[in-house]
């Protein structure tokens, strides 16, 4: 190893100590590690400050927080230390069903979904659907309680390859595909979905802030 003229032995030692430390170190600990007496404190601080200057502009800084010293990666490089990993996930049966009901019956409320499914919809199911970005809250139904109305997003159309929501197969097509029994009661209807941006006649707009809060995760992509 070549001698580096710009760095003293003490500075080298401090560097190694702070590098290997599992937590920020205060002056007393550093001094104890170096096996020095308290009168050397001042000198140690000088050495730490020299090191601090040395690392200025580097990718790693020597920082002092709460009276303790530690190496930290430069704040402006924090983005570098993040790696995005895409994890493919499957929707649960309940989520798929809820999504489909929202798609066909939109704008629809949670109560309506539950009425159609015949079971209560867990909060998680709707949360997951919001996370997919395929479902969005549209407004509020003009009924007591002002329940939120849900509809599908343009991402929904993109993912499932529809140009418009009108392309969702209707009753005849579902029957033709063998997905619906031929012998359904005559009152069985499959609605014509509408995901239009304009609110329906019985819909009120969402209050300011609601929408963005609930869909912030979806928009970022």
């Amino acid at each position, binding site marked *: 190893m070549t001698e580096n003229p710009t760095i003293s032995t003490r500075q080298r030692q401090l560097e*190694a100590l702070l*590098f*290997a430390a599992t937590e920020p170190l205060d002056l007393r600990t550093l001094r104890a590690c170096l096996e020095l007496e308290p009168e050397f404190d001042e000198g140690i601080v000088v050495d730490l400050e020299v090191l601090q200057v040395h690392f200025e502009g580097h990718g790693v800084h020597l920082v002092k927080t709460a009276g303790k010293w530690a190496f930290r990666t430069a704040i402006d490089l924090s983005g570098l230390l993040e790696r995005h990993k895409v994890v493919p996930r499957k*929707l649960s049966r309940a989520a798929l069903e809820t999504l*489909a009901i929202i798609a066909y019956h939109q704008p629809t409320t949670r109560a309506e979904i539950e009425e*159609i*499914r015949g079971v209560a919809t867990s909060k998680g199911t709707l949360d997951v659907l919001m996370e997919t970005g395929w479902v969005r809250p549209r407004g509020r139904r003009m009924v007591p309680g002002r329940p939120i109305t849900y509809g599908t997003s343009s991402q929904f159309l993109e993912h*499932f390859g529809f140009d418009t929501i009108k392309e969702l197969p209707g009753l005849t097509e*579902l029957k033709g595909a063998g*997905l619906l029994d031929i012998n359904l009661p005559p009152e069985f209807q499959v609605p014509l979905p509408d995901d239009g941006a304009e609110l329906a006649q019985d819909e009120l707009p969402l209050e300011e802030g609601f929408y963005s809060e609930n869909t912030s995760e979806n928009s970022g992509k």
Partner: protein
Amino acid sequence: MTQGENGDEDWEEPGTERTDPDDKGFIVDVDGFEGPLDLMLALVRTHKLDLTHISILYLAEQYLSFIKEARSLRLDIAADYLVMAAWLTYLKSRLLLPDEPSDDEEPTGADLAARLAFRLKRLEAMRGAAEILMEGRQLHVDFFPRGQPEGITVLRESVYTANIYDLLSAYASGRLRKVVSVIRPGRERRKVWSLKRARAQLEKIIGFDCQWAPIDALLAGFLDDPEERKTVLAAAFGASLEMAREGVVELRQDSAFNPLYVRRKEGEK
């Protein structure tokens, strides 16, 4: 299985415990040796032999006397040590007798000795290598990684996948489940023909006609309602069988699924 292998006692300095300068050179104890080669290396060390110019003949003699002594003390000696002793005895004879010019297949005594010397040197070298390796720098002993790495944060982003079929079948099955659950027994009385009613109708229609006639043609007036069709046919068929059994009517069908013909039996009533 030889001694020392499973015990894994940490023999730091093989031979040191066994050497006793006041005695004949070493204490007889085969425990702790890692096989015959290990024992021979211990003998090399004990007798301060030079591995590079080793006299295999001399070493063989040392080995054999060691084993002999161990046996005289009735110590348990594992088979490999005895096999080696036997082989060394053979080697000794080969080394002492002049090599006869024989066929090339047979290695000479010198060849065999060289081979043994090589194996000893190689094992010794591997031991030395292990020692140097462990004495060298080691992570977390002589050099250290960063104690508090920030790590690289992996931001997991879930991407949901579903295809159109998943979606549609979920919708259909969800809706159908509700349809099924809506049907309650008794809400709407199903029209069912009893056997009795069918028989009464059949008797009325057939009357006294003794001509063959297809049964569904006879019942044509009752088959219009799709809801009733099945039950009428089933009940009428049952009734006709009953009447045939009683000898009131005769039935005929050419083959399966062909029309069923019925007529009043001649001479009856």
